[in-house]
């Protein structure tokens, strides 16, 4: 371990810490809804307040996102790797579940209390 190694470690820690703080500022409050996008386009926005099963069937494949107890989690995916099913449930603003093969991003949007975030209409599809 040399001096420059230590500098590098400190730099990475600072960068991670800075990004983390910035992320917290952007809102760690509990989110109001989950926005699902497929291939960069909004597929739908679903309230986290009511339990529901969201089926996301596209030409790329099948996914099932489940909302229970104010949290969303990917429970079904017919992609080859299935990493999205292993990702933690999401409830805080800007947390995401990503399914790369199916180009799906589920992101928590619109914290219940902050107004700086534009809250999209919450529709149960």
């Amino acid at each position: 371990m040399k001096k420059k190694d230590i500098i590098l470690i400190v730099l990475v820690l600072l960068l991670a810490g800075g990004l983390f703080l910035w992320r917290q500022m952007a809102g760690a409050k509990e989110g109001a809804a989950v926005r699902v996008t497929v291939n960069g386009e909004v597929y739908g926005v679903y309230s986290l307040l009511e339990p529901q099963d969201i089926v996301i069937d596209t030409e790329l494949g099948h996914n099932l996102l489940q909302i229970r107890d104010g949290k969303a989690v990917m429970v079904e995916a017919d992609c080859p790797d299935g990493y999205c099913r292993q990702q933690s449930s999401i409830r805080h603003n800007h947390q995401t579940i990503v399914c790369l093969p199916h180009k799906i991003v589920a992101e928590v949007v619109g914290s219940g209390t902050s107004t700086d975030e534009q809250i999209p209409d919450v529709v149960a599809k």
Partner: protein
Amino acid sequence: MKGDGETMYKKVPLYAMLVALAMIFSYVEALLPISFGVPGMKLGLANLIVVIGLYLLKPGEVLLISVLRIVLVGYLFGNGMSIVYSLAGGLLSFVLMTLLQKIKGFSMIGVSIAGGVSHNVGQLLVAALVLESGAVFYYAPVLLIAGLVTGTLIGIIAGRIVKEVKKGSRQLFD
């Protein structure tokens, strides 16, 4: 590779062995039921071969081994897209590691950390491009720390292996 019969005869089996070893590492990693709950987070065991290679072989040879590993593993266990992600991470980490190696003053641990961190950053960038969404950057802090930890561990292990190899079977690499 000068086409020199004597050198080729030694080098080709060495490349093959290292590619095979890196592939085994990738496979073992895929088998491990470890989930960090974060997309793109990996142990990066195969990076061990790249780090060791950087200290025993020429950069071009390491690049060849690294790219061969990624493409072969992608065809065997992954899909077209997984090759793209791995290549982005693999190439970015290769460039940064050779760069840090050129700048004097970094130990293998520092070089390996740069590799681990940039590998994760590279994958994140491609993911953001493919998904057309910056949402994946939510996990950037976790991935940076993860790269730091795995990079440090791999750097320590690689350092020990290189020491032993230089002591014992140096002729393998000459």
